[in-house]
């Protein structure tokens, strides 16, 4: 158990660092690479939570397919160097102070709360296995599944409408 916790905190530090790196790096390609690192760490979280199927989906879909698309777009547009975004002078201090307020609020809530977050131990071992996910997807979550497929058709038509030039 302690090993699990130690692993979690090390990975959490990497996840947060890579997320910050993504936000702060000036080069868009570096940002994308930091994001891949972040996705992979999150995938390991899923493994720690007994959800190997979601972990693999995370790697193939997000770290794999979507990131390739990101990198392609960045390189095709030649947008590696993001220019300085000009904004009003008060924006930056305002954003920083709001961010600090939010962080202190979150810390306050975490340390002031009396109730404990329920332990995850009660989750069954086969909770995230492909069989369980598949069964849940086609029984209890059938309607959300079908709604998602309609959503995909709508987005596909939308993308075609917006990009197709009239002849």
């Amino acid at each position, binding site marked *: 158990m302690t090993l699990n916790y130690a692993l979690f905190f090390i990975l959490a530090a990497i996840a947060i660092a890579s997320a910050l790196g993504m936000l702060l790096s000036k080069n868009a390609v570096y940002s994308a690479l930091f994001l891949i690192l972040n996705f992979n760490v999150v995938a390991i979280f899923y493994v720690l939570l007994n959800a190997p199927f979601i972990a693999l989906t995370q790697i193939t879909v997000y770290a794999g397919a979507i990131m390739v698309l990101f990198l392609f777009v960045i390189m095709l547009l030649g947008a590696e160097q993001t220019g300085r975004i000009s904004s009003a002078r008060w924006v930056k201090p305002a954003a920083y102070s709001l961010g600090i307020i939010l962080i202190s609020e979150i810390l306050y*809530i975490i340390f002031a*709360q009396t*109730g404990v*977050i*329920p332990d995850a131990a009660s989750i069954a071992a086969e909770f995230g296995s492909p069989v369980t996910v598949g069964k849940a997807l086609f*029984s*209890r*979550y*059938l*309607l*959300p599944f079908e*709604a*998602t497929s*309609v*959503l995909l*058709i*709508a*987005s596909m*038509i*939308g993308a*075609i*409408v*917006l990009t197709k030039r009239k002849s």
Partner: protein
Amino acid sequence: MNFSDLTTILPLITLVGWAIILILVDLFIPAQRKGIMAMLSAIGIMISLVIAICQFGGQTTAFSGMVVFDGFSVFLQILFLISGLAAIALAYDYIKRQGIERSEYYILLMFSLSGMTLMAMADDLIIIFLALELLSIPLYVLAGFANPRLDSEEAALKYFLLGSFSDAFVVFGTALVFGAARTTTIPGIIAAITVGAANLILLMVGAALILIGLGFKVSIVPFHMWTPDVYQGAPSSVTAFMAVGAKTAGFAALLRVFMAAFNTLAVDLVPVLWALAALTMILGNITAIVQGNIKRLLAYSSIAHTGYISMVLVTINQSRITQHAVGAALFYLVAYAVTSFGAWAVVITLEHSEGKGLNVEDYAGLGRKYPALAAAMTVFMLSFTGVPPTLGFLGKFYIFRAVLEGGYVGLAIIGVLTSLVSAYYYLRVVVVMYMREGEPLVRKEFWLSSTIFMTAIATVIVSIFSTPLFTWASKGIMFIPK
């Protein structure tokens, strides 16, 4: 899943199925006769409407508690489907005239409509999120339908970026609520809170994030920034549909989630909701005063109306008036829908190519040249202000009554005062129409004129017989399995 699950969501299945068939049918319709698609999609919506009306009565859940069928969902479905018909009537001639007629317009509109219908029935946070996406994504595309016109592209991009950002809030909120209550169904969340199994702090943060995400969709201040630009840039027929449909769907989710599931968080939520409603009313109405463009004016006016409807949310923990509060909100949504479609139809009638004819000054002389059109616009403006005998007056009356019953006198006073402010800019349109000389350019078209005629009549007539409508709306209280 069994057969009764399917019959419960039959209006939705009809809409989606019809839209998918229309994609195929479109192949066989020659390019210069795409108007047929408007008729075909209107027929599909009408079939769905008839089924929805036939289903009236009874309460049940379907798809293992994912959707709920009750008075609330039927009421909203009928409202959405009629809005869809009105949106097609407004678009039929307009998109042809603007040179953006493509059959995908109607198909996307039907997909968006099916998202709204799903939202009316949603009883699970996952369904609420999916319905939100399904109604929004076609709207993003429709907002940019007039590309390569720059303002339309700007509207689409702005709406898309800020919209997806706000959807992320809904997802994150849903995840936190799941962490707190270990379920995403609304009855499940209620049960978890009742037995004390839920982590209230996580639940609170989740509720706040969901409020932000949905607040964006209905443009509650301070999440309203996108509204004026998107309403102005999008083609007017899309704006009308967006202003009514997306807002009503957002409120459907807000009412269902906050009135039923999060009412135990009222101690922390009510001050926030109070402030949001007050800010929305004040900012919407005051900013509208300085608008010269009629589309921007109506955008700020729609923000102000969001403020009035969100007033009822402060009563979330007072179960004895929940019926009145939900009824008042639904009634106001109907009043807003009827009046908005009328007003936007007038805007479309006067709009000509390249965005000309959209300033309040362009309405000068309308009273003399086209008295019927000016009279209809006057009715809509009076209804927006809340002057009897119009639907808008009764909507405000029921809302203020529910808020006063809840004991929030201060908020009601802000509501009344801001309504007085709103009289200034609504009546300015009337004054320009009747008191100034001018040569307004008007497009006469059958479907547009009949929409204006029917909404103007409904605004007055329905207000006289409003009691049955209000009774029906307040019976639409959500079904919560014990």
